């Protein structure tokens, strides 16, 4: 190089562009000066390239070792993956599972990864013959990222599909809602759609809660009681060829609903198979003219007002003509009856006269305070609005008909809560489906404890001497009231279609539980001498329920001697005058059971 420089014959002057460089190197040729510059600048190139490759290496390490954000798509693994947030269980008061979630596998197809769609289609149809052929064809030949082929494969199906070894078929962890009690809890628990969105019952009511919180929800329900109630109501429907039935068991001290059954019902696993009747919750959504069970409220109201005493007598001989209606008794006693007799024999005429003494405005206000004019505060989406005439349309005829349970319609759960309130010394009982729900601090008495005691005595008389002898359960101090209401058909009351009900309370000496049963359109049979009234149909059903659930609820049956003492305690508030005055026509007890009719 030095040799070359010495021998150089090049001009020392340089192209203008490169002049600044050349000034410092006068002895070198332009080419050599340029080379010197190039060598220095190559170092810059080396540094730039080295940095670039280092950045790439760093990014590689960052992505492969430290970044775990984007991995879900590729790392999604089928089967037993517990990453799927599970919908919370629903359990009964004893911890028995009523609704739970089972991890399952769902099959989906990424059509872009399927090598031979026709072959895949054929193979899949062999393993899963119930697939819709056209939809399957479209899914396998389409361009969808993940087309759902079938939800909730059984383990056997999962194995079979996996064994096909078709690329592009993917298994997704999924979840299926399972209802171990099936039909027995269908209306309370409700059901979800295939994506586990609650559509009815508790599933809908608690949808957000069940999704967010994994802790099980505990209901007040007791599956054992629920099952017994379900069985007895089903048996009653079969026996009387009824259209349906509703029933519930309530803890009077807390308002907790221990059992609630509406028939016909549906399989929550396949809710689509149920018709409208089956899906309908008669306990909470249905509102009905309840008939004579309303006489509990009428009698309590009249007695509590102080205007009428138990021993006061009313004309029950003459049917009442009011407007276009005639109020008559089914089998009139043809004499004046006192309040106890009116209640026990369920006289409509007597009840109407009693209500007259109070007047429509106070009557409506009283029923309102019992919660009968507003929707029941029950924790279900399916709650029916009671049908109550507006205050300005509350005529004298309304006052009279409502006194024996016609002219307004309420749901069974409303009725049960109101009856529980009367029995509970007049302290409001709020119905609830949850265990240990917040108890109301309300201690206001809607009726006085004395009136409540009288009412309990009267309800005991109904069972021992009145329309509901079939309801008695030895040792359980049953009390209650029957109801038989004509159903409205084609715009008027149909005397041959009715709702027969019974609301029972036990043990009356220390009232704790309420059992309600209502049967829709029962047909009398030989055993009931053709009768299909509340006393013949619903009361025996309640009796059978109580005799089974009593021991489960830790209510021991009373010894006969103790029973006599308890009986005395319960009846004492009625007073000896009333008790002695009651004329019992033993032979006509069952025959004269019900007497609700408005024509």
């Amino acid at each position, binding site marked *: *190089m030095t040799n*070359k420089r010495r021998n150089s014959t*090049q*001009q020392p002057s*340089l*192209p203008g*562009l*490169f002049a*600044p*460089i050349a000034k410092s190197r006068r002895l070198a*040729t*332009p*080419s050599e*000066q*340029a*080379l010197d*510059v*190039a*060598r220095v*600048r*190559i170092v810059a*190139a*080396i540094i730039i*390239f*080295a940095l*670039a*490759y280092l*950045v*790439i*290496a760093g*990014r*590689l*390490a960052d*992505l*492969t*070792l430290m*970044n*775990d*954000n*984007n*991995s879900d*798509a*590729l*790392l999604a693994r089928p089967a037993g993956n517990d990453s799927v947030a599970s919908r919370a269980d629903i359990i009964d008061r004893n911890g028995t599972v009523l609704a739970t979630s089972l991890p399952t596998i769902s099959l989906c197809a990424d059509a*872009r*990864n399927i*090598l031979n769609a026709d072959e895949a289609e054929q193979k899949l149809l062999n393993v899963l013959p119930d697939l819709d052929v056209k939809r399957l064809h479209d899914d396998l030949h389409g361009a969808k990222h993940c087309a759902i082929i079938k939800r909730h494969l059984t383990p056997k199906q999962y194995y079979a599909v996996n064994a096909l070894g078709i*690329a592009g078929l993917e298994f997704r962890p999924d979840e299926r809602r399972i209802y171990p009690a099936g039909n027995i809890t269908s209306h309370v628990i409700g059901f979800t759609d295939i994506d586990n969105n609650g559509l009815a019952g508790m599933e809908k009511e608690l949808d957000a809660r069940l999704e967010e919180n994994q802790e099980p929800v505990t209901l007040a329900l007791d599956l054992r009681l629920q099952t017994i109630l379900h069985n007895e109501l089903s048996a009653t429907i079969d026996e009387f060829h009824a259209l349906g039935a509703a029933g519930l068991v309530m803890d009077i001290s807390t308002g907790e609903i221990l059992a609630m059954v509406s028939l016909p019902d549906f399989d929550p696993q396949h809710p689509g198979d149920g018709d409208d009747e089956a899906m309908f919750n008669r306990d909470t959504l249905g509102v009905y003219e309840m008939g004579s069970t309303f006489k509990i409220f009428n009698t309590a109201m009249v007695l509590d007002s102080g205007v009428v005493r138990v021993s006061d007598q009313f004309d029950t001989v003459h049917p009442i003509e009011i407007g276009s209606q005639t109020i008559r008794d089914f089998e009139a006693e043809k004499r004046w009856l006192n309040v106890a007799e009116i209640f026990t024999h369920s006289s409509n005429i007597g009840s109407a006269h009693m209500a007259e003494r109070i007047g429509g405005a106070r009557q409506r206000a009283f029923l309102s305070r019992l919660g009968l004019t507003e929707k029941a505060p029950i924790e279900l989406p399916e709650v029916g609005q009671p049908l109550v005439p507006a205050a300005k349309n509350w005529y004298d005829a309304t006052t009279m008909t409502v006194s024996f349970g016609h002219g307004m319609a309420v749901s069974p759960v409303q009725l049960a809560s109101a009856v529980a309130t009367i029995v509970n010394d007049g302290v409001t009982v709020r119905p609830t489906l949850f265990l240990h729900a917040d108890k109301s601090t309300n201690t206001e008495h809607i009726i006085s404890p004395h009136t409540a005691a009288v009412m309990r005595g009267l309800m005991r008389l109904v069972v021992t001497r009145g329309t509901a002898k079939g309801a008695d359960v030895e040792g359980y101090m049953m009390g209650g009231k029957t109801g038989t209401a004509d159903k409205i058909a084609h715009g008027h009351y149909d005397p041959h279609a009715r709702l027969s009900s019974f609301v029972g309370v036990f043990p009356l000496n220390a009232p704790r539980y309420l059992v309600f049963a209502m049967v829709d359109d029962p047909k009398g049979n030989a055993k009931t001498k053709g009768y299909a009234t509340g006393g013949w149909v619903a009361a025996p059903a309640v009796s059978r329920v109580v005799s089974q659930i009593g021991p489960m609820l830790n209510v021991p049956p009373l010894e006969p001697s103790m029973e006599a003492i308890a009986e005395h305690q319960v009846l004492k508030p009625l007073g000896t005058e009333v008790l002695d005055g009651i004329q019992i026509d033993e032979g006509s007890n069952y025959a004269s059971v019900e007497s609700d009719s408005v024509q």
Partner: protein
Amino acid sequence: MPVLARSDKSILGRWWWTVDRWTLAALVVLIGFGILLIQAASPAVAVKDKLDNFYFVERHLIMLVPAVLIIFGISLLQPRTVRWLAACLLPIFMLLLVATLFWGVEIKGATRWLHAPGISVQPSEFVKPLFAVTAAWLFSRQCERRGFPALSVNIILYMMIVICLLMQPDIGMTFLVSAMWFGQFFLAGLPLALVGLCMGAGIGGLFLAYYTFPHFTSRVDKFLTHGGDTYQVDRALDAFTNGGLFGTGPGEGTVKMSIPDAHADFVFAVAGEELGLIWCLIIVALFAFIVLRGFWRLQHENNLFIVLAVSGLLIEFGLQAIINMASTLHLMPAKGMTLPFISYGGSSLWSLALGMGMLLALTRKRYGLNEI
């Protein structure tokens, strides 16, 4: 390779003892990675295109034969011959480049390819290395000042090529050729003030391109906002994450199922998933080795033309690898560019072979010679 004695004066013997065997070895390893990855990545793509499973594998292997012959054949040549070869071939491919503007086939909105029966050629790929050598000659002539208007010719050539590339349009290739040419200009002693000016102009050019070419705009927007359809890049990133340190093993990856270009522009993602971090770093190291070793050896080179020509070829080769890997790793906007010797693609492979052949020819040891 038969053992060749140092005294062997045959063409092959001289070649073996003078050629840069380390660089040659690195290239051979890269080609080996290419063969491995094409077998892993391309069957999935071939099936999707309704081609035979090994369509791309066979084509790649067939195209490798001329590529290897080109590397070897060109590297046998003397620097002087290489220079003349480049200067003579460049006008031919520039004519073809112009021809693409009239008879080119439009693929995905750009006309870069000429189709002749049995063969498709992307002339711009060949213009790239040929221009690197030709421009180096002109720069060195400019410095040696032999009364030839070298700089003017150089600038005119550059402008013609850039205009043709922009009309295709091919922003990536424009960027590559510009970086190479200005890199050579920089090494040839461009005053620092002008270097700053050129860098400013380059940045300005990118902004201009951003507002001029809708395709380029959307690519940059996707990168900056991560909005729109970033499916390919997302899957590529998933691939690296999935691969981890050791990879899933060759052929065991899934990213190739979802990326249409898994055998070409996104082959590095397949490498990331199936070979894992360690082997990916080895690939990066191979590219870095070839480029950095090439530059380092130029420190001892006494011929300006060779310094500039080799630098130009190294910049093209190294930058192309960087752009490909950085795109795949989402370090820059997605840019369609092959990973040298690993990606599938005939024109790209042969032009890289041509470039590396010339690089090997120019970097052979010469004793006592400054002039060539």
